[in-house]
């Protein structure tokens, strides 16, 4: 809908980059048949300068998303790290080229963290490339991308699960405790949805930061934005059982409210 016309701030992104992105994205909107070159080209030099980015081996890293998403407002994106990248990724960025706020997240991982899969649920506004760029502990960059066809994910109305206790956190481990889904009850309002009563945009209100820690040590920190779906969800998986207790802290914009919960293996939802 009107995503592309609304100027938008994302604290994870330099304003200059964003304006560049909006300017670059606008002319291509007329051609909705083919995926446009979106945010990535102007973002690349801002985020990574002229550094080489490898795009070779799916064994090292893969990104998976449905070619046509069942639900544009909640499209699953799965990142997998294997081989030489397992435990050696220090940062991952996820970018949805043709979204109004393309940078979905920047995740910093603790060295040696035994996580080989990270799942996110994202909004997708139109036919787009979805890409992940990983930086290893020795400073190498690897990128993978995939296409997703969708429409209207940024401006979709709240789902049946809207509401509930703001900031409630749920843990959903697999039976073998090698994966854990963390869901945060939050509208994650993009600022692009319209209040039908007034015709005004619903103000942005979204989870901006998620931190996972164990024993006071940070395992993972993520800057997040409005491209995460309503009730933001993060899932991590490992080749061995995850260690617990694991504490989650989430912060939102603009309230700076902090939500926290701790998962103890053997217990399911909080």
């Amino acid at each position: 809908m009107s995503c592309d016309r609304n100027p938008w701030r994302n604290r994870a992104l330099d304003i200059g980059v964003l304006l560049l992105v909006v300017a670059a994205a606008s002319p291509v909107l007329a051609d909705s048949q083919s995926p446009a070159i979106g945010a990535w080209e102007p973002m690349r030099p801002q985020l990574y300068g002229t550094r080489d980015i490898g795009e070779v081996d799916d064994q090292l890293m893969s990104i998976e998303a449905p070619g046509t998403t069942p639900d544009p407002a909640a499209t699953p994106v799965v990142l997998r790290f294997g081989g030489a990248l397992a435990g050696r990724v220090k940062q991952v960025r996820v970018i949805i080229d043709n979204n109004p706020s393309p940078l979905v997240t920047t995740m910093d991982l603790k060295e040696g963290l035994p996580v080989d899969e990270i799942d996110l649920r994202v909004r997708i506004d139109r036919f787009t490339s979805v890409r992940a760029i990983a930086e290893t502990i020795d400073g190498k960059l690897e990128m993978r991308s995939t296409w997703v066809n969708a429409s209207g994910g940024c401006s979709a109305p709240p789902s049946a699960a809207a509401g509930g206790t703001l900031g409630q956190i749920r843990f959903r481990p697999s039976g073998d405790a090698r994966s854990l889904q963390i869901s945060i009850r939050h509208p994650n309002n993009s600022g692009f949805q319209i209040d039908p009563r007034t015709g005004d945009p619903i103000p942005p209100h979204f989870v901006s930061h998620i931190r996972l820690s164990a024993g006071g040590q940070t395992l993972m920190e993520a800057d997040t934005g409005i491209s995460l779906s309503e009730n933001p969800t993060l899932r991590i998986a490992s080749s061995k059982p995850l260690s617990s207790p694991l504490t989650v802290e989430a912060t939102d914009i603009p309230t700076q409210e902090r939500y926290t919960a701790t998962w103890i293996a053997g217990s399911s939802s909080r």
Partner: protein
Amino acid sequence: MPRMTATVSRGPHRRFRGRLQHATLAVLGSLAVSAWLYAAAPNALPVSEVAPGVFVHTGKTLALDVPGHDDIANVGFVIGARCVAVIDSGGSVRVGSALRAAVREHTPLPVCYVINTHVHVDHVLGNAAFKDDKPQFIGHAQLTAALARSREFFLKNYAADLDSPPGAEQIIGPDRTVAPGSDLDLDLGQRQLTLRAWPRAHTDCDLTVLDRGTATLWTGDLLFVGRTPVVDGSLKGWLGVMEDLARLPAKHVVPGHGAVSSELAAALEPQRRYLVALLQGVRDELAQGKPLQEAVRDVQPQKSQWQLWDETHPRNVARAYQELEWE
């Protein structure tokens, strides 16, 4: 219905006049003018009279992105002694105009109400075709808001289904609404319609119409027959609403999609089984800690029994998952 004799007799008369006009023009040899006349008077939508004075057009089983997608919903009208109520207007102004032409084949009475059963494009985009009749547009209290959210999306994706040039003013919302959980009675002249607005189910703005005299129930998309049901509101809410729906005194059932039938309980049963299987399947995935994408892959009940499964079912799983993960 006492009114029927009078209204039905109008049809042949009008058709005769049409033939006369055509003959005159043929004599004049003005083929171009003749072609223009046909274009100006749209072909009437085929309808069948499922109960005295109750006319239904059965929509096609097509996806939303193929030619003919504007004619996929069941639409129709009910004729009273004083005026006519149109129930859903189709997925384009063209289909709305063809529905209006069908009304005109059966009665000269004015269209006093255009009732929309919910917000989906295949049920509302024909509203503009009735604008000049100055009817009351009636819907669920949430329909106003739901249309406000959808207008821009409709304009972008269904511009070709509006009159040219397409504009937001053609997407007409209700000027009279029914609050969820309550009824509204309409009098068409010796004919009472009872409209009921439901809590969140297929969408957040579902409305049914019961013609009391003939016990004809228009379910809107609270009932899909043959075509895979679309969960756009609340899966649990819908199953609850279906229990109440089953208690309505209906002898004729007009679903939102699929064949008209005379047994409400039997008509509801396949959909109930599908929705229960969906609910159970997704709950099982959640209990095993499976993520959304695995649930979409794993939960495949009753695939062979439903039309347009691949276009519809995966999204239902995704929506159900998001609803049920907070149980």
